[in-house]
Structures are given as C-alpha cells and as structure tokens.
C-alpha cells in the first residue's frame, strides 16, 4: 500500500553534505506494523518526516526516490495537495506529548480541528466524532475531557489525545515517532497496547520508529534496522530476534539490560555488552561498511566495499559481508 523506493534525504549544512537517509526502500501493507529501529541519528526520524514531507528546507531536502501511497507519488504533490494527505491519509504521533499539544486550546478543539480540516461536516458531527475518538483511545469521562486543556492531563493521557488526533480521520498509515520514549514504563505498556488494539480495530498500517527493541518485540510485525542513514537489515520480527544477520542488530540486542533471575544471590554471569565506539558523523562516513569501525567481524573487504543488501534467507535481508559467520557464531 505504501511504497518507499530509494528515498534519499540530504541535509546541506555548514559541516558539509549529510546523507541522513541514503537509498532507503520499503513497503508497508495495510494493517501491518513496521518498526524502524536504530540509534540516535541513524536517520529513522528523518525517514518519517520525509514521508510526511515535513522537513525544514533548508537545510533538509528529499533529493531522490519515490513515496507511493496506493500508487500516488507523494513527493510529486504540490503543497496544497500534500496538506490534504497529511492527517487524512498519513498522520503522525510525536515523541513529546507534553509539548505536542497546544497549551491554550482545549483537547476537544484540537481533535475537532483535524476533523474540520478534512471536511468532517457539521458541528454536531465533529463533536460526536471527537467524543468517539476520546472513548476509543481510552480517556475516561470524555464529555468532561473535551473541555479541558492539556495541562490538566497526565503525560499518558496527552499521548492518548495525540493518538486520537492522529487517528481522527481514519488515516491509512500512522507514523509513530518514538511514541512511548517520553513516558513512564508503566504507561508505555498501556500506550503500546492501545495502539496495537486500535490498529487491529481500524486496520491502520503503522510505522513505528523507536530505539527500544523491547517495544519492537511487543508490537511489530516486521523490522527494519537502520544504521548511518541506510537499511542494514530487514526481517519479520521473530526471525530477526532469533537470527540477526547483521552484527549491528546483534549488538543492539546484546545491549538491552536483561532482567535475569538471581539464584542464590548470585548475579548471572556476564556484563551488559555495549557496542563499542560511536555512530560515525554522517558527513564523514568511512568508505566501505559504515559499521566496520565498530564491528568485531570486520575484515578488509568491509573497510573497502559497502556490502550488498541481499536476501540472505527467505524474507530476511541484510547488508553484511559476514552474515554467514554470524549464524555460525552461537549467540548466548
């Protein structure tokens, strides 16, 4: 349904050309949840903003590729047509529920505004739909809440309100950019569950952008791992967690703190393994594989040539010269 082909988003900065998104392609089926994971600065948020064409230009510009929604190229639309797409066909939930709502406007008005923009008809229609949305996202006493201002709501409730705004017009695609990162852990689980439920109910496709592999494991169907502006791995979620074929993915998984049961007061052996080094500056990427400087498997060829992005197993793609060795190396 949504097809992204060879998307290239560059930033023209004083530090030079930054290829924030470099040739990313993927497709999204209706009803599916696709997770895009990676460290800060790997280009996952820029990918999302590029889909919505919300990047500030300058400095950011989409220089190549295509984004097709039901066959229509979004990158070719003029500004007015694109505004019609935003919120109606593709909408977005942001990371910061604290500041993503207008502090001087009631919750009800902010939801109603989205509806009105995309022609929801009568005042009563808008009001009814607003209440319905608030109920749908599990906000108690919706009739009371529509008249309240964001500061009267907790962080979790605000994020629910944001989701209500995003889903008000029944979009085909919902982009959630780190929707739970700013919330308490207990609230995170609630919000994720809510989004999963709503998605099932409404059949919305979702692109979930996160750095939290726990969130990915719970909600996603398919996962794309990004590193330094490129896709490095893509697979169904179970396949990815069972058999990561890129050393970066493996490194990400190993750096999750695991809650292991302590027996007899003895902590489980082994400390948390972080990925050594830092994400390289996107304006000065090394030749060859961008991950090579941090990779335990790196060899000469990694430092010389960028690995081809290939289907290593059925439905499991990766860009690494040494995927075979990774399968061989038993991961504890």
């Amino acid at each position, binding site marked *: 349904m949504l097809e992204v082909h060879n998307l290239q988003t560059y930033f023209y900065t004083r530090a030079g050309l930054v290829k924030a998104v470099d040739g990313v392609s993927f497709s999204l089926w209706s009803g599916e949840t696709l997770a895009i994971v990676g460290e800060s600065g790997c280009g996952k948020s820029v990918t999302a903003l590029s889909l*919505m064409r*919300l990047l500030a230009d300058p400095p950011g510009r989409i220089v190549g590729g295509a984004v097709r929604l039901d066959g229509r190229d979004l990158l070719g639309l003029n500004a*007015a047509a694109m*505004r*019609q*797409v*935003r*919120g*109606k066909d593709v*909408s*977005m939930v*942001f990371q*910061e529920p604290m*500041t*993503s*709502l*207008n*502090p*001087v*406007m009631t919750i009800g008005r902010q939801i109603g*505004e*989205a509806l009105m*923009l*995309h022609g929801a008809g009568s005042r009563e229609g808008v009001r009814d739909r607003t209440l319905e949305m608030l109920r749908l996202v599990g906000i108690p006493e919706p009739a009371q809440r529509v008249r309240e201002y964001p500061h009267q709501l907790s962080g979790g409730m605000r994020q629910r309100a*944001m989701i209500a*705004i*995003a889903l008000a017009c029944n979009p085909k695609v919902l982009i959630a950019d780190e929707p739970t990162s700013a919330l308490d852990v207990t609230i995170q689980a609630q919000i994720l569950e809510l989004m999963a439920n709503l998605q099932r109910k409404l059949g919305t496709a979702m692109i979930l952008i996160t750095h939290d592999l726990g969130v990915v494991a719970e909600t996603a169907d398919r996962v794309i791992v990004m590193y330094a502006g490129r896709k490095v791995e893509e697979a169904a979620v179970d396949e990815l967690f069972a058999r990561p074929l890129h050393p970066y993915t493996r490194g990400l998984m190993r750096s999750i703190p695991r809650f292991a049961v302590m027996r007899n007061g003895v902590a489980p052996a082994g400390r948390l393994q972080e990925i050594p080094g830092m994400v390289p500056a996107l304006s000065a990427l090394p030749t060859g594989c961008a991950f090579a400087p941090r990779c335990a498997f790196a060899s000469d060829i990694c430092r010389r040539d960028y690995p081809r992005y290939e289907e290593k197993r059925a439905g499991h793609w990766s860009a690494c010269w040494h995927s075979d060795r990774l399968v061989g190396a038993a991961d504890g």
Partner: protein
Amino acid sequence: MAVIDHEAELARAGANVRGPLSSILFFARSYPLGALGALIMLAFVATAVFADAITAFDPLTTNAHDSLAPPGDRHTLGADFMGRDVLARIIYGARISLAVGLGATALGCLGGMIVGLMSGYFGGWLDLTVQRLMDIMQSLPLLVMALVMAASLGPSLTNTIIAIAIPLVPNVARVIRSSTLALREMPFVEAARAVGMSETRIAITHVLPNTLAPLIVLATAQLGSAILVESALAFLGLGVPEPHPSWGRMLSESAAEYVRTAPWLVIFPGVAISAVVFGTNLLGDAIRDMLDPRQRF
C-alpha cells in the same frame, strides 16, 4: 514547634476559591495594589459611561456670573474662566481619555499583532524589512512620534486615536514577534502541520493565542501611556478640539494664567490624569505578576 492551622494555610493558597465573587476577593488579597488599580480603573470607566447621571452641570455651558468661582457649594471643584463647572468637565473628560486610551491601545495592539506575527512566523526578508521600519519608529519617543502624527493628521478624536496608535505598533510588534519566534519551533506547531494545516492557519489559530499573555500585560501598560500622551497632545493644542473637555487641555488653558489665582483649575485635572495613569500601572503590574509563570507557585 508551632501548630500549623491547615485550614488557614489552604485559604491563603486559595484552595477555597469558588465562584466569581470569591475569585475577586482572592485577587484583592493576593494583589492589594492591583486591586486598588482595578478599583481606580473601574471608577474611571464608570465615570465615563455614566457621566450625565453623575453631574447635573453641562460641561459646555458657560456662565459669566460663575467665572473663576472657587470650589464651594455651587461648584464642588470650582469653575473656570468661562464659568464652566470643573467637576463636570473632568467627568466628561473621562470619556475622551477612555475613548482615546482604549481606542489607541486596541488599534495599536491589533496593528502590532499583525505585523509581529507575520514578521516572526514567516521571517526572511519580510522580517528584516519590517523590523528595520520598527527600529526607525522606535527611535523616536512615543510623545514625539504622536506629536508628528497628530500635527500632520489635524485635530479630531479619530485622528488623535490614530496618532497615538501608530507609535504603539512597534512595541507590540516586538513582543509578539519574539514570542512567535520561540513558538514556531514548538512541537505542537509541527503537530499542526502533520494534520495538514496551512501555515497561515497555524500562525493564527496556534501561535497567536499563545502570545496573548504577554500582550495583555503590555496592553495595560500602554493604556496608561496612551492616556498620558492624549493629555500631552491636548496640552499642546493638538488633541481633541474644543469644545469637548479634555483633561490635558483643561490644564493648558489654565496653567499659564490662573495657576496662582485659581489653582483648582490646574490641580484637579492634574489629579485626574495622575490617578488614572497610576491605576493602569498598578493593575498592569498585578496582571503581569499573575500571568508570569515563573512567579507562580
């Protein structure tokens, strides 16, 4: 250890505020000076509105018999050279002061809002040009600017309002622009874009309402200066023309000739001007304290 009276502490924090009357009392207790200012302003507005009910005298009727009558039984605050009742002229003069003060402030704020919002939100060469223009206007003091305006427009009520409103525009534009600059980077502006809102609409429905708190503070302060400038213009003979009573002109008519022989002609209009400006300042300060989130607790 001292015994803490929880009820009294809560009452002091405003926990028992219910309904409008209780809110007003709470405001008066929290900001006593602000309440005094509000009271002065209320009296001022009431005077202007109900002028004909308050005084039996017509402010324009002359009476040779009462020329320069001192304050007394017949004329509470005395009468001027032409025998017109000073109290009546002050009461009716409140209308002019209020009309010019409110009119000029409203007009100036509206103009400043439009200029500041466009300048701050859209930026670029527009911002640059507009701000330099504002710089030029601000380089002259309010009174001088208004003087030039009033002199070139000619004396009338509307022209006085315009002459005072235009110099107010840059002050308002500056405040609106600076809050707009911060607001346009806020995530909720991005979120509004993400639901497909146009830039103009975002600027008006999302950014502008968030700039109103500092604007209200500024507007109350400007109200005082507008009234003061109106008096100054009238004093210099450039304000609202005769025969309408204006506090500033009452001063100028009397100051030179009668300040020694009939001081009531100078004192009472002067007191009226001072009281009203004092009132706006007190009220403005209280509103600023109330709306400043950094001073909230």
